[in-house]
């Protein structure tokens, strides 16, 4: 065939292709959001556990996030630990979207977990990683792996290696009726930081996690204490008559904001920890309480009934300018600002029932996150994607976690006493 004829043929083919094919675009505007099925396959190699095996700790972490539905190992047709042993069709039939496989070995340090994450639907590996730890660090290894899996799939930083504080009321009068407890975010490895025969309230982490502030009634009236977790020393910061409550650390850990009623009615103040200089922030005959800092350190959000009912307001620390943030419902209190500063989470009352609600600051859009009554004390995860709150279950105070997208609620294992006032730690620095 001559060159000219060849060219002619190609031109004709191209013309045909464009006339024969038209592009349609279908718009997909909705989805069905359900927990993503994930198989964390029991790892090969040596057995490493701390109350639970590594794969069990990981499955629990992932379920707690509200985003995953772990598949029970008993339902798995096989327990592969190498890529060659994955038969995707089996996992597709099981409904798994992701699979985590791996191997645990011993080294001089302790344990090494080699693990891989696969997308079952696309049959692709997302990553292969190794996490190491000492023999006492089995839970840390598991949580680090959970963080990596969560982040690879969602593009959000995992919170499974973070901690929490809570107050436990043992219910029986005595020297350690009330305890300030620090624990892993899944409830494990709880340790008592301080115990008292008198109530403890409102624990708050400093952002470097070295200190905790809380209200203690040990002097027979409420006072704010600073507790150094590294040295174990405690310092009483306030001793005013009346209300001394709701301490909140500034983002740079240099100040605490709190509420005092020493000047007649509850108002907000800030204290410089180093200089002990007390600065009054609000000046209004109404009740102003429950301060929480914005991430830029320039404003406080707080609860006030200056508008006739408890609502959440924001005050600029430099300007003193006050702005109301909530308008839905007759009660909005205990506000907490999200780490990105764009939304708040609060206790909201609707039709006489208390819920935890989320509100976008700019648009004012509000969304109810929890349905059970008597939900209180929301505390936001440092990745902004989840929160912990206190609630009742079987007549006992327990903690529950919920994702900000109002996904599945996860109830943490109950303790001996009534658990309340949770505080989610920042990311470890």
């Amino acid at each position: 065939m001559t060159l000219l004829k060849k060219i002619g043929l190609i031109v004709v083919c191209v013309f045909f292709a464009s006339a024969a094919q038209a592009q349609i675009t279908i718009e997909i505007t909705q989805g069905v959001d359900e927990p993503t099925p994930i198989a964390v396959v029991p790892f090969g190699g040596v057995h490493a556990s701390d109350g639970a095996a590594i794969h069990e700790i990981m499955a629990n972490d992932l379920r707690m996030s509200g985003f995953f539905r772990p598949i029970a190992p008993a339902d798995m047709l096989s327990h592969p630990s190498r890529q060659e042993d994955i038969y995707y069709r089996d996992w597709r039939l099981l409904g798994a979207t992701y699979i985590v496989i791996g191997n645990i070995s011993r080294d001089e340090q302790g344990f090494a977990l080699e693990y891989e994450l696969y997308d079952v639907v696309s049959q692709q590996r997302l990553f292969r990683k190794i996490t190491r730890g000492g023999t006492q660090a089995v839970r840390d290894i598991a949580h680090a792996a959970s963080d990596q899996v969560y982040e690879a799939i969602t593009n959000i930083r995992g919170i499974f290696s973070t901690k929490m504080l809570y107050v436990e009321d043992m219910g029986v009068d005595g020297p350690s009726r009330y305890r300030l407890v620090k624990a892993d975010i899944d409830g494990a490895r709880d340790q008592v930081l301080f115990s008292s025969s008198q109530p403890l309230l409102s624990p708050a982490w400093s952002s470097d996690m070295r200190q905790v502030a809380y209200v203690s009634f040990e002097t027979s009236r409420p006072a704010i204490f600073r507790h150094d977790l590294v040295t174990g020393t405690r310092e009483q910061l306030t001793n005013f008559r009346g209300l001394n409550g709701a301490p909140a650390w500034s983002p740079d850990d240099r100040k605490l904001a709190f509420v005092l009623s020493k000047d007649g009615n509850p108002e907000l103040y800030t204290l410089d920890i180093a200089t002990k200089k007390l600065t009054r922030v609000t000046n209004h005959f109404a009740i102003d309480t429950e301060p929480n800092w914005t991430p830029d350190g320039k404003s406080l959000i707080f609860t006030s009934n200056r508008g006739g009912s408890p609502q959440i307001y924001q005050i600029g620390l430099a300007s003193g300018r006050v702005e109301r943030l909530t308008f839905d419902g007759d009660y909005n209190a205990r506000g907490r600002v999200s780490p990105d500063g764009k939304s708040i989470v609060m206790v909201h009352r609707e039709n006489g029932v208390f819920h935890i609600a989320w509100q976008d600051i700019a648009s004012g859009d509000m969304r109810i996150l929890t349905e059970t009554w008597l939900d209180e004390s929301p505390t936001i995860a440092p990745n902004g994607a989840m929160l912990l709150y206190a609630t009742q279950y079987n007549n006992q105070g327990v903690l529950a976690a919920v994702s900000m997208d109002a996904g599945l609620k996860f109830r943490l294992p109950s303790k001996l006493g009534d658990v309340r006032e949770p505080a989610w730690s920042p990311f470890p620095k």
Partner: protein
Amino acid sequence: MLEELEKALKEEERAAAEAQMEEEALSYMELVQQKVQNNWNRPPSARSGMQCELLIQLVPTGRVVGVSVVKSSGNAAFDRSAEQAVRKAEVFPELKEMSPDVFEKYYRQMKLLFNPQDMRQ
């Protein structure tokens, strides 16, 4: 004059045939949309305003044989959820009933624009 009339008639016929093909193509769009939507599980970071475009390849049995992201949302988790939605949908069996020329023209290769309207801001 007769030639012109003939030409006009042929044009009209061609336009009518094309309109009919287009109508048939449109009639299958909703079931494709439904099945993909039923399989689309969005990640927690998804927000209204995020968009990604996928190019998918089908065969006449309605089976998906190729998926690729042609316009990313900028969020890898979002893009991956869209791809997974199509792969999980796997096959649109009703497309077997489509006229072969309609399939070739409109469905052999098509685009899906993932543009959620039901997510938080």
